[in-house]
């Protein structure tokens, strides 16, 4: 199954929130939708879930307009919350039924997931008697119980302790293994790097970067060196503005072009006392800051 958002536009009043958004997410792979707060992630997700219509563009499944009666979507919203005063099993069954399950199947699915996430003992308790982490797990069940084809997880790891985070990782891997489209939205880049095969970065309602994560990293211009030395001051004096000190012993050296790499490395190792030298490989975090940061931030860095 391939989920595609094509040329999606959306305005609220005079403010254009999404401007020709397009991306694809494939079944059996996780897709990371990244962006700063207010970039348009939640609006994209809501359009994808048919909460409100787009002003233009289309949501497609395998190239055809999505049929919401046939395609089941599970959603873990960033703003968590269920009915605090209601019995857990009642609300889990209610949400599963709303997603189209019959009562019997909904009870069975809710019980399976309570067991799977180690929450069976809280089945007949009120939600507000649970800790925050456990409430998160209940919320996760509402996203998964109805066996959705598309799973949308907005900041799924926030608020989870390391043990629960491991449990959630296993669940996410299971969902991917079941050939589902898993769409991640998170600011925790380490998790995105761990799970996602491809990403899209949204900035001010536009897709500024889209593609396979490995390709994105590989295509990143390799024109910076990372140098570790006990005496950075000598290098700084010689390289001037091309040099940026990161900490006491670490420097970034900007190359005029990637091809300059060899010669500059030789120059550095022969002229200075160097402990370590390598080409700078950006992390997803660096890429995110690069693409999702303000223009002024970028200019400052350049």
């Amino acid at each position: 199954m391939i989920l595609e958002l094509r040329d999606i536009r959306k305005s609220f009043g005079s403010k254009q929130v999404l401007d020709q958004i397009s991306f694809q997410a494939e079944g059996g792979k996780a897709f990371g939708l990244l962006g700063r707060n207010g970039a348009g992630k939640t609006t994209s997700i809501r359009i994808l879930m048919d909460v409100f219509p787009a002003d233009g563009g289309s949501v497609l499944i395998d190239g055809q307009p999505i049929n919401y009666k046939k395609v089941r979507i599970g959603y873990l919203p960033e703003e968590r919350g269920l009915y605090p005063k209601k019995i857990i099993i009642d609300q889990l069954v209610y949400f599963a039924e709303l997603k189209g399950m019959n009562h019997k199947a909904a009870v069975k699915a809710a019980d399976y997931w309570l067991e799977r996430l180690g929450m069976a003992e809280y089945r007949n308790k009120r939600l507000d008697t649970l800790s925050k982490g456990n409430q998160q797990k209940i919320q996760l069940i509402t996203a998964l119980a109805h066996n959705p084809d598309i799973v949308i997880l907005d900041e799924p790891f926030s608020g989870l302790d390391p043990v629960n985070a491991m449990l959630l990782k296993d669940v996410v891997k299971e969902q991917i293994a079941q050939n589902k489209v898993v769409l991640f939205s998170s600011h925790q880049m380490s998790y995105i790097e761990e799970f996602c095969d491809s990403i899209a970065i949204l900035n001010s309602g536009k897709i500024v970067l889209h593609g396979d994560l490995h390709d994105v990293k590989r295509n990143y211009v390799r024109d910076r060196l990372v140098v570790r030395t006990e005496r950075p001051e000598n290098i700084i004096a010689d390289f001037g503005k091309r040099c940026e000190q990161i900490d006491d012993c670490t420097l970034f050296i900007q190359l005029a072009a990637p091809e300059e790499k060899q010669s500059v490395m030789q120059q550095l190792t022969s002229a200075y006392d160097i402990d370590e030298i390598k080409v700078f490989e950006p992390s997803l975090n660096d890429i995110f800051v690069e693409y999702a940061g303000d223009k002024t931030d970028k200019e400052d860095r350049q």
Partner: protein
Amino acid sequence: MTQFGKILKFELKYYIKNKVFVGVTVFLVLAIAAVMFFPRVSGIFTKNKKSESSSELSVMLLKTDSPELTELLDNAFGEAFTGYHVQTTSDSDSAIQEMITSGKAECAFVITGMTSYTYYVNNLSMYDQNTSIADSILQNICRMSAMVSAGVPEEQAGSIMSMEIKHQTENLGKDQMQNYWYTYIMIFALYMVILLYGQMVATNVATEKSSRAMEVLITSAKPASMMFGKVIASCLAGLFQLVSVFGSAILFYSLNKKHWGDNPIVASIFDMPPGLLVYMLIFFVLGFFIYAFLYGAIGSTASKLEDINTSVMPVTMLFIIAFVVVMYSFGSGNVDNTLMKICSYIPFTSSMAMFTRIAMSTVPWYAITASIAILIVSVIGIGILSAKIYRVGVLLYGTTPKFGAIMKAVWKA
């Protein structure tokens, strides 16, 4: 089961499992049972007390200056004031006043001539009829003595005085006196249930929004299904409570009917025509929908639960104004005044205004049909509009948006 059906079931379950809802309903039924069984239970005691009661009547003092009048007035007052133990006295006025203020006597008539007297009473009740009774006694005595002194034989004068006028009233419409109490109770019940349950809908929606349950709900169900599910569930809960209260009242009354005997108010309440109950049902359901939809829409625009009270104020005010207009016309007895006629066709007021007119007056069938038709069309219109406001409102967080901004967003949606 459709999505709407699932929401309705879930919301109804909320009321049925709600301890306050169950508690209030049980309390009301028990209270009605206590009132309805009271005459049966208390009757055991009153049988023995009846003989003593005559000596426990309030004392009315009677003082006259002329001794020849004393016996005549004593008899006449004794016959007229059956609720009092009439005692003649020759004490001074100050002593009489003293007796009244100390509570030994309730009131006193000091007759100062054939056509004048002073009435002493500690606290003059709004419903005190004693002076008008005394006036007619004295008038009769004056007329009798005038006729006798003019040469009319005493017997003839007596028969002239006791001449009775026979009359009969042919009521072609409704008897307001008889309809008064049950109409009063029904309007009050309508008012209470619509206000209480309407506000519950608003709180319910705002709770879902503030607890962020809405984030999942809005992606799981259509706003119209959610709005209609909630409103109809609370309407059914309100109806259930109304039926419990009225049903138990009718049941308990029929069990104790003979013990209530000749109490005219109670008899008139339970003598309500069944057709009126049908009208009450129609106007309750339609009136409820109008307000519950509005409350639901307003609830969806509030971000925090504490904003609800101020947000719903305009709707509550509208409803209270409708209630005041109806109650004022109802109290004045003129339920067919122009204001009431206009209010009978305005959807926000017609549920109470038209119902009151049907109960207390004679309204042509086409007027009733027109009023109900306007209400039905308005319910559908307001329902659709509210579902749209709801869809826009539930996704707006932060400060409560202005009405104009919401309508603009609804128009665009």
